[in-house]
């Protein structure tokens, strides 16, 4: 059951990442690229978790990658708020 849930989470997260990638392509807004990367690495993170025999989120690898995925989101937000955009 847990493995199925994890697999579904991986698929859904990576698919969301693909959508963000598409939005980045259409809008040229780097914000979406950050989100695509964030969801992408989190999807891979969950996959890695599923592939360990004994899923344990205490392991530094897993919480570092999850943290990194959220750092990317923070960077996206920061860039949106504190960087002057060149207007097209």
């Amino acid at each position, binding site marked *: 059951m847990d493995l199925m849930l994890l697999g579904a989470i991986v698929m859904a997260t990576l698919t969301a990442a693909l959508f963000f990638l598409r939005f980045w392509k259409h809008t040229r807004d780097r*914000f979406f690229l950050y989100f695509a990367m964030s969801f992408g690495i989190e999807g891979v993170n969950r996959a890695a978790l599923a592939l360990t025999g004994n899923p344990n989120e205490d392991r530094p690898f897993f919480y570092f990658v999850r943290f990194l995925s959220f750092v990317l989101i923070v960077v996206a937000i920061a860039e949106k708020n504190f960087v002057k955009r060149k207007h097209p």
Partner: protein
Amino acid sequence: MDQKFIPDDVAQFVTDKIDSVAELEALLLLRNAPDREWTARELSMRLYLNVKDAVDILAALSAKGLALCKTGDPDAYKYQPGLSEVGKMIDRLCDIYAKQIVPVTNLIHSKSKTRVQEFADAFKLRKKDD
């Protein structure tokens, strides 16, 4: 770069109210003959649209308060901007469109992507846009 040719308030009006080039053409067509009423079929023939698109465009213009709909069989639409400021805005837009057709059409086409841009813009902490 295009938006340097279009004043900000006109650009804002286009972004808010105009969804397609065909819609803009229809609005300006109605404006050119302000006493005339147009049916969707007449519009479709004049602008080389299919009738369904013409129906949608006229309905949209009416919903946005830019045209008056006279229900009947068929419905007929007349130029009716409502507030005088809106009328003046459309006059300016008409003038700008005549001189800078490419920047205006680019603005309209870029608009079709901006709805998803709202997802990103939600993360702006300050309310005013830059």
